[in-house]
């Protein structure tokens, strides 16, 4: 990744490295396999195996080298590596199971395996359970939302070199300021077109338009 704070020579080197690391896993095997076929055709199957082995040996060296470099922090980290996916919480999974159960219930009834009395009773139970979970999840999310917003605000204000910050569209000058919605008063992102609280259209042209 290009870091705007370092000098140009280093950044172009990094850019090259990224290009190479992207191209090699695709091009390398193709070249080796073609060469192996050529060797089998021109010489014999033994030579072709040798070519393949050579290619694989290069792959071994390449990946292990990349691994060690990542470990000592020399290799640049790509965005999708940096973006750790938040795994679902236990409550979310429970919610999914209950939703699935509700769906099954419908299916089971449509197949005639469940009579109406049982269906109503089970459905009431699962629905109330699901609702409880939904509420719980929402409650859990509230504090985290605030933390995330604080992070984003800090990143936008500080101009930090993190990948996420750079991917975000430039907020021309007023990085830290977040416009409030005219309808409900919720603070929104600088480039928001609609309010995330009430869904109303945000007033005026966008800052970066």
């Amino acid at each position, binding site marked *: 990744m290009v870091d705007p704070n370092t000098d140009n020579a280093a950044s172009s080197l990094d850019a090259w490295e990224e290009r190479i690391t992207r191209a090699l896993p695709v091009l390398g095997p193709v070249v080796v396999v073609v060469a192996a076929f050529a060797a089998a055709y021109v010489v*014999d*199957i*033994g030579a072709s*195996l*040798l070519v*393949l*082995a050579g290619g*694989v*040996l290069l*792959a*071994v060296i390449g*990946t*292990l080298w*990349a*691994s060690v470099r*990542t*470990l000592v*922090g020399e290799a640049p*980290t790509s965005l*999708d*590596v*940096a*973006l*750790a*996916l*938040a*795994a679902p919480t*236990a409550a979310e*999974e*429970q*919610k*999914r*199971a209950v*939703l*699935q*159960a509700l*769906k*099954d*219930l419908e*299916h*089971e009834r*449509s*197949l*005639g*395996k*469940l*009579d109406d009395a*049982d269906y109503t*009773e*089970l459905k*009431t*139970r699962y*629905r*109330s*359970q*699901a*609702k*409880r979970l*939904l*509420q719980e999840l929402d409650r859990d999310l509230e504090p985290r939302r605030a933390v995330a917003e604080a992070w984003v605000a800090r990143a936008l204000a500080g101009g930090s070199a993190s990948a996420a910050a750079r991917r975000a569209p430039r907020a021309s000058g007023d990085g830290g300021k977040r416009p409030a919605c005219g309808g409900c008063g919720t603070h929104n992102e600088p480039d928001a077109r609609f309010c995330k609280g009430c869904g109303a259209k945000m007033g005026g042209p966008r800052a970066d338009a």
Partner: protein
Amino acid sequence: MWTSLPVFGELVLFGVMISAAYTLAVSIVAGQGRPRWLEAARLGAYGTIAMVGLAILVLGYAFVTHDFRIRYVAHYSDRSMTPTYLLTALWGGQDGSLLWWLFLLSIYTGACVRWMHGRFRELQPWVIATLMTIMLFFCVLMAFAANPFATSVAGARLDGEGLNPLLQNFYMIIHPPALYTGFVGCAIPFAFAIAALITGRLDDEWLAACRNWMLFAWLFLSIGNALGMLWAYEELGWGGYWGWDPVENAACLPWFTASAYVHSLMVQERRGMLKVWNVVLVCLTFVLTIFGTFLTRSGLIASVHSFAQSGIGTYFLRFLALLIAAIVGLIVWRLPKLRSEGRIESIWSRDAAFLVNNWALLGIATFILVATVFPRISEWLLSQPSTVGPTFYNAWLPPVGLAVFALMGLGTVLGWRKTSVQAMRRALVLPTVAGTSLALAHIVFGARLGMPAIYAKERIYDGAIGVVLQRIDSVLPLIASFFVAFNTVVITQEFSIGVRARMRTHGEGIASALASLVGRARHRYGGYVVHLGVVVMFVGFTGWAFNVDKETSLKPGESFRVDRYTLTYLGPRMEVDQSKRMIFADVSVVDDAGHQVGRATPAKFIYKRMPDAPTTEVSMIHSLRDDVYVVVGNVSAESKVATFQVHINPLVSWIWVGVMMLIFGAVIAMWPETALAEAGASGWLRSAGAVTSVVVFGFMLAVAPARAFAQSTSSMHAGTVQIDDPKERELFVQLLCECGDCARLPLATCTCGEADQARAEVRAKMRDGVSVDAIKADYVQRYGSGALAVPPNKGGLRAIYLVPALAALFGAGIVVFVVRKWKRKNDEGDGPPPAGGGGADVWDAKLDEELKALDG
């Protein structure tokens, strides 16, 4: 030629070891929540995998260039072998097959690591760590005990010994890799289970993650076992497809536990129950695959499959002990998190039925496991050698298998959670009617078709148990035909109800309703197709009861009648190619109606390399009703008289058709939910694997009749034995041939010279009026108690059926206890909770939205 190729290969092996150890260390650190280290671990895993590939390539190069300095190459190949068979030699022997195991594991690891990219942040490091530990074990094993690159002490030879001709055939090219693919595939779900235990994330995440991996492994276990059956049937020449060989047993054990898991994971997914049980099943499946590998390699129990006895058994035992200790420790540690939130609404529900299904499948597995290792156990604990032959299994297992088969249909009738009495009655009417009609038809017409509903089964024990077992076994065809019809109708009914419901609610036509029904619930309807395949296979298994075996010798032009066929010997014919002389004995087959059914061409191949040991080539004429299976014993050069063994095996083709349906159903169940491009590596892997497997299997079936000519195979125990007297048969199935060469075949099927002699002696004694018991006692006195195919029903040896029976009873007790506990929890449980507060409407709307999103 490199002078140091073997050294290089060995270096690569050590390289794999170091790299796997490095990746293991890095991934454990990554498990403490460091994304950078995780990335390093992923790269390290790729590097390790590539290195294993390098090792395989080096060994392949050594084979291709005939580097006979390497002991393994010299032992399993020679200069005359074609490149394809040289490839087979990679897994033909012990050391190479271990490397092959490692190679497959690394392919799986590569696919899995690629697939995990960007998800399972917490589980991922531990999955990689577990897989690396397994790799490390195999590396250590090879480096210190079974090194495929070890050089011969005597230096390079001029030519190698060549691959065992028994292994030089089409099935040996694909049967072990298919089975290994299934075996090794169980490592991925295991890695997920361990990762879930370590991180404590024991909810549905890991289940969802490894469901398709397990299905994939299960599919290949099925294919591998089916190919093994085909191989035995087509190549070994004893007329059957499953001989209850220890290695066959070991290969089917993980299949049972994997099947149990595929069912019980649905219970956890939907109900949050059986959490501990699912972890146990996944781990058990993996442990059984390692156990199977151990059994094949340690020579613990005599088997036709065994590799030469070697010292690696102790390594496997230690690894197994370590594995089990680690698993038990982790489970006990995490027990509080594994508490189920389970609650069962009704005993008449699919939830409860799955419990019973698991109990039954595990019961069969336990039974087979105990019987397989029984010879060793009886020797250690009771100091009484014993052998468990096919006769034992054939008497005990069909009833148990049929019970599971019956459960399969009954469980399907039930719905999740609760089934109303009327609904159940409605669902049971048609299947019961169908089952009863087929059973009646079987009684009326069966005997006329040569398939009586009740047949004479030999008794394996004296006394009450023997009589009961014999009674049950002899009515099995009738019960089987009832449940075949019952299950078929149950499954058809499921489809038709679903299709009709969709046609009603969505106004679709039949075809599109069926397509969208299956498309929306692939696991369920794919599973039903698998069940249908099992039904068809059971039809085939039932045919076993009606086999007819005959032996005769004929002059050219003479005819011979077996069952409903007349066989006419046309005369011998000789063909010669570079490596062998082939003597065919052509037989024309005509059925009772006078139709020409076909021409069978059984043969003897005499290889130049082994002129003294001609090989026997089976010839078969397949049809849906029966297979005509012809083997030629020997052909006299002067008189042209040939001896033939003819088996009429009814319904065998149904098994292969059933297997194809099973594969098709598994493919439907595994078909990725999202578009292929989005599903990523695993989607492609699954689809590609599924398509190839179907194509390969279909291709093999298609070329099956032609192979009789194309094959260059040998059969160690070709031919059969003519036994017309039922009393004789009852005795012969219980005595094992003691030539020491043909592993564990009973006198009733073994055709070696020694068996001939033993049979003649026994027959002479019977003519003299010696009682059956006296003959048996005499035989035991001569050869030891290990010479009986069925361990005698006395003293400690009763453990062979008492232990599994007690285990099954214990299991049943647990099932009842668990169900009652859940039921009680439900009855006193939180009933319908208060229907929300004031905000109910908002949340109702949100809930409906989420439900809609789930549908989309």
